[in-house]
């Protein structure tokens, strides 16, 4: 996945319009709730075959934090 594709996937996850997310976007400005966390765990499992834990996710502050684990 390219950086752009990852951002687009996250825009879909957070249900925001295309072009609104950047790596610097703070998660507390988005609907970063339990459903979003489940969707992220599912996404990372599906696309990257990785297991993301709740503990890892809890410390995320920005979209960049999410992008870092998307590989």
């Amino acid at each position, binding site marked *: 996945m390219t950086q752009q594709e990852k951002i687009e996937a996250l825009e879909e996850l957070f249900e925001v319009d295309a072009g609104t997310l950047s790596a610097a976007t703070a998660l507390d400005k988005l609907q970063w*709730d*339990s*459903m979003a*966390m*489940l969707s992220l*765990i*599912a996404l990372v*499992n*599906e696309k990257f075959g990785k*297991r*993301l*834990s*709740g*503990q890892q*996710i809890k410390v995320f502050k920005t979209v960049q934090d999410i992008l870092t684990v998307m590989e």
Partner: protein
Amino acid sequence: MEDKVALTISTYLPVSVLTNDELALLYAGWTAEKIFEKTGIRERHISAENETAGDLGEKAARRLFVEHSIDPSCIDFILLATQSPDYFLPTTACMLQDRLGIPTTAGALDFNLGCSAFIYGLSLAKGLIASETAKNVLLITAETYTKYIHPMDKSVRTIFGDGAAATLISITGKDRIGKFVLGTDGSGYDKLIVPSGAMRLCPSAETALEFADDSGNTRSKDNLFMDGTEIFSFTISTVPRMVKETLEKNRLKMEDIDLFVFHQANQYMLDFLRKKCKITPEKFYMNFADCGNTVSASIPIALARAAKDGTLQPGMKVMLVGFGVGLSWGAVVITW
């Protein structure tokens, strides 16, 4: 008694029902429809104040005897799966022997598991029969998680319902139960837990202190806590692999399985697992919108419903998949 069936099942759900409309009144910003969208659940049954898991199990067993013309005197072993026993001691299954009119020559024991309990119970029953210890095992899976749940903890109050199933595993049907794959990860013990009440942390004024979590749910250490994110993460990385291993152990391919009955946890998790395991919707049984997640009773309740609505036909190969508290998991293939 029906001959040559793998399992004979009857179920019991307590009378009182908690609807999404009632829950929406309690939780700001939530509608009945939103609760259904997030969970796939509209109603859950709630045990009465003086109605224990043992009582639910007894009622399910009585229905089993009546609905399937089974004489209690033929039962020679009682297995009760519950995490809400009547007492720390004596064993609730021992009391059920007396209440159900089962002979005193029968064995009886409780075992403490949740969402994987039915699978483990089947493995124990098969072992008891294969070792010529028993011929007719009554496996009761009964749970009352709602008694542990704080009314203002929507993370679990929307999900769990009370219920019981009574399953007869008989020597005539034992060969219809295939091989098991089981697993345990105790490092996840605190992801689904009632912290106080037993020997590690006795209940006290301190454990009863309520607190709010980051999502605005209220609970105390006396209440059920579930880390939904961690449980989801664990499940999606464990279950697909287990399904594959269970096929291999039973020398079967995906196409050989006619129906999959997973523990009926919640819609989101089941949808993800179905797609991840590449199971088509017609082969993936889901029927829990009116009873919620009934923990150890969820798989047998689903099986009984599938048999009743015709989805499940004699001769079908069914994979049963359980996973949850412990953390614990297990799967088996049965020929219905």
